[in-house]
């Protein structure tokens, strides 16, 4: 509750209400306790209240059970990251209490289930402890069936009281969530919630109230990154996909499997990752750009087929929801270590497009952009997202779907003549012509992975291999020239430029705000187009003494992270250095600033 400003007497009289503009609440329990549901309710409520919200969760990669957390940061102003330190910890077990108390800021509130947690005397001084018998009171609230299922909703009632949340809106959310099921479930849930809300918190005198946030011109929608990405693909006109289950990509394939039939499409679960990419390429060849996706290990398996799509110049969208690697690695943790495989994975010279969305909202728009680039340049396009974005919930301005949704039905009209690998027409950027199309010249195209002539027939010509290689590379250079010019966040000149890609954007923005607030010359630049890079970066770099690339991967043998290595290769600029880590967790703003300050004091 940083920036708690005004204490005002509450209408009730006794307790004081403190006005706040944001709160970071960490909920810790076990994975089957429904703590993600509380987080989801809070996030959705924030969305409906025109507040900003961002969540962060960890789930165990075990089959059932295990410690799990859900952190939600709600604010009346801009929320850029899930937050470094929590204002409040809601903990259900002794281990949740002991493992997470250090994530609470000094003086913060620890709300614990007194049925399971025994507070430690040594922590009583530093944190404000509030015990409630959450489990037994839940059982009581739902009529003493002996089970504490619903304690998450009871706890949400407590939070609603403490943060003076909008009760009619929350009640409606509970009814929506549990409606459609047995009426007794809704009744039980509301009983739990009301019991929690009515519980007297005698030893916690203060309650809090969020400042009103700015009115927004459109409603907000609340979803996680995987949902935004999948819906973006649908809006873009994708109607076919194929995949194989792997965490954290599976949500996307499940959603597309469920939703695409409504639009006349389908998503196929295949026997393996290779079949998935092959089937998607086959459907693209059929005339309409298709999607496949996976997480790290699955991407490794798909690389040969992706090389074919580069060679055959076939549009395709590949989603990589990165997780901790290598090998099976850390399936439920965040890491940005698949950049190299997406840009360079595969044999031969096979340039491809890689775009990294920076947040949940950006997932939606990146999906559309990827589809359009794949079609325009007839090439595979990677969407390089990660576990952090995939599972975090954000509220964002509802897109104007009527305007955005596009029809990409294939054009089967007759062609007088068609060369699939025409070296001269349209600057060497071919357009795929699908089977079903009559070619009046009688010369039909072959899509091929062999080096080929302009019609797709195999050639061993040294000249043609050179020309075709040039063509495949040059079309991406043309794309680079069309990408929007970037701007720094913060002044265009200063001491340090923090550069990020993908999900680290919010954290570096917040780092800039904090550094600027104490007079440090820090700006940042978030790059979405990883391959090809947009033009003009060297001009931006000129304005700074240090360029620090912030990414969640290893510094490698030579001391530079994966993106930093690409930038160093591209610009041969020794000022480009690396800030990396591999702990499977998202950046904390403090970590970035500490590392940046240390690095700035060392010579490049």
């Amino acid at each position, binding site marked *: 509750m940083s920036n708690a400003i005004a204490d005002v007497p509450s209408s009730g009289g006794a307790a004081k209400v403190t006005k706040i503009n944001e709160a970071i609440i960490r909920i810790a329990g076990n994975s089957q306790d429904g703590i993600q549901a509380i987080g989801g309710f809070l996030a*959705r409520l924030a*969305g409906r209240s025109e507040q900003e919200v961002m969540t962060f969760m960890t789930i165990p990669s075990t089959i059932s059970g295990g410690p799990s957390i859900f952190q939600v940061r709600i604010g009346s102003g801009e929320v850029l990251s899930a937050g470094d330190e929590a204002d409040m910890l809601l903990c259900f077990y002794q281990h949740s209490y002991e493992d997470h108390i250090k994530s609470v800021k000094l003086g913060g509130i620890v709300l614990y289930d007194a049925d399971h947690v025994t507070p430690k005397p040594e922590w009583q001084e530093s944190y404000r402890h509030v015990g409630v018998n959450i489990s037994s009171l839940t059982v009581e609230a739902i009529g003493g069936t002996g089970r504490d299922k619903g304690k998450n909703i009871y706890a949400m009632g407590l939070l609603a009281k403490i943060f003076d949340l909008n009760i009619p809106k929350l009640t409606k959310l509970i009814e929506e969530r549990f409606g459609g099921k047995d009426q007794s479930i809704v009744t039980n849930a509301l009983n739990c919630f009301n019991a929690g809300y009515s519980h007297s918190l005698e030893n916690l005198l203060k309650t809090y109230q969020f400042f009103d946030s700015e009115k927004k011109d459109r*409603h*907000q929608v*609340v*979803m996680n990154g995987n949902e935004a990405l999948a*819906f973006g693909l*649908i*809006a873009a006109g994708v*109607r*076919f996909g194929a995949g194989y289950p792997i965490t954290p990509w599976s949500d996307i394939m499940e959603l597309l499997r469920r*939703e*695409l*039939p*409504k*639009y*006349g*499409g*389908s998503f*196929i679960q295949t*026997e*393996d990752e*290779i*079949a998935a990419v*092959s*089937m998607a*390429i*086959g*459907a*693209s*060849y*059929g*005339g*309409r750009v*298709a999607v496949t996706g996976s997480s790290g290990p699955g991407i490794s398996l798909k690389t*040969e*087929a992706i090389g*074919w799509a580069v060679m*055959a110049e076939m549009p395709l969208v590949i989603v990589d929801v990165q997780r901790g690697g290598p090998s099976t690695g850390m399936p439920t943790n965040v890491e940005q270590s698949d950049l190299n495989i997406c840009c360079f994975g595969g044999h031969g010279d096979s340039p491809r497009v890689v775009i990294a969305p920076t947040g949940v909202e950006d997932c939606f728009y990146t999906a559309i952009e990827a589809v359009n680039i794949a079609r325009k340049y007839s090439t595979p396009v990677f969407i390089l997202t990660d576990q952090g974005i995939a599972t975090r919930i954000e509220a964002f301005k*509802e897109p104007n*779907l*009527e305007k955005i*949704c596009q*029809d990409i*039905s294939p054009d*089967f*009209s007759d062609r007088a003549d068609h060369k699939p690998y025409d070296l001269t027409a349209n600057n060497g950027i071919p357009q795929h012509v699908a*089977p*079903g*199309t*009559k070619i*009046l010249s*009688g010369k*039909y*195209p*072959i*899509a*091929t*992975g*062999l080096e080929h002539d302009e019609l797709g027939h195999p050639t061993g010509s040294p000249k043609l291999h050179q020309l075709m290689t040039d063509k495949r590379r040059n079309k991406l250079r043309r794309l680079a020239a069309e990408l929007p010019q970037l701007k720094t966040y913060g002044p265009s000149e200063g001491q340090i430029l923090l550069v990020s890609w993908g999900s680290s954007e919010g954290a570096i923005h917040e780092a800039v705000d904090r550094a600027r607030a104490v007079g440090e010359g820090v700006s940042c630049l978030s790059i979405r187009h990883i391959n090809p890079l947009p033009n003009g970066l060297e001009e931006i770099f000129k304005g700074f003494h240090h360029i620090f690339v912030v990414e969640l991967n290893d510094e490698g043998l030579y001391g530079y992270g994966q993106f930093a290595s690409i930038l160093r290769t591209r610009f041969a600029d020794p000022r480009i250095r690396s800030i990396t880590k591999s702990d499977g967790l998202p950046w904390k703003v403090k970590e970035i600033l500490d590392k940046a300050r240390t690095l700035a004091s060392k010579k490049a």
Partner: protein
Amino acid sequence: MSETLIVQPAISTTTPPAGERKGLTKKEIAADHPTWCPGCGDFSVLALYFKLIEKRKIWHEKITTIAGIGCSSRFPYFVQAHGAHFIHGRALPFASGVSLSRPDLHVFVFGGDGDAFSIGGNHFNHTARKNVKLTYCVMDNWVYGLTKKQTSPTSPLGFKSKTDQWGAVDYPINPMKQAISAGATFVARTTHTNPNHVLQMMEAAMDHDGFSFIECLSECVEFYEHAFDASNPRKGGVFNEVPKDHDVTDELAAYKMAGEDFPGKFGIFYKVNKPTKNTKENEIVKSFQSKTVGMKDWQILQKNFDRMK
């Protein structure tokens, strides 16, 4: 009604009504001269594919020929029509992507024994069990030809290759048994030395609504000469057709017949009608779309977004 994925291309403006068009001639369908060795069995399969196109009046724009990697997989280059030459072993999932998104096309996949049963073995089983509507013709020569004589998954025990100089030691795959047990709904066997029979099998496969598999013996004169002499009456062998009284819906009888010693029988071993993957996916689409009649795509998506507010 929202747009569907399954878009039927408009009838070409320059296409006369089907009745008036003549079947394409070999000259119109032949593309590159095949790169196969003189005497290769694959020539005969290609010639009969041309014959099929001509006889059944399949138009250029509707022909989709797909292959993976291997000698026989060069096939699409020799056909003047839409085609794709994909990567090793993955022709079936690629072709499934075409078939499932383009029900207006009948996809033909050609390949060899290495492509089908070694590197692509998993896809063979799963495409068969899913009953994806397409025809898969495997030109089985019992050897790797493109890489010049290594053991293939169908090489018989004792076959001397560059990778088994003392004779193959691994038990070979029986493609017919494999297809039947994987759940293929049309399983036939033929040989390149009997052109009429090859054409018959191709036609029956094309007419089958489901995954149709043909094992076509196709001799490699360079690296496995005389492999199939025992099935060729002109070389002193016997060509025995599947007996007239064989019940093609009897899975066990088909499996038993597949286990006969070489040269065995030729013809349709197994054929049953089961709903295809294509049909099933289409049924899912229909049931969903009945709930969104009259809605534009953006309106369907809007309903999702409304629930996320």
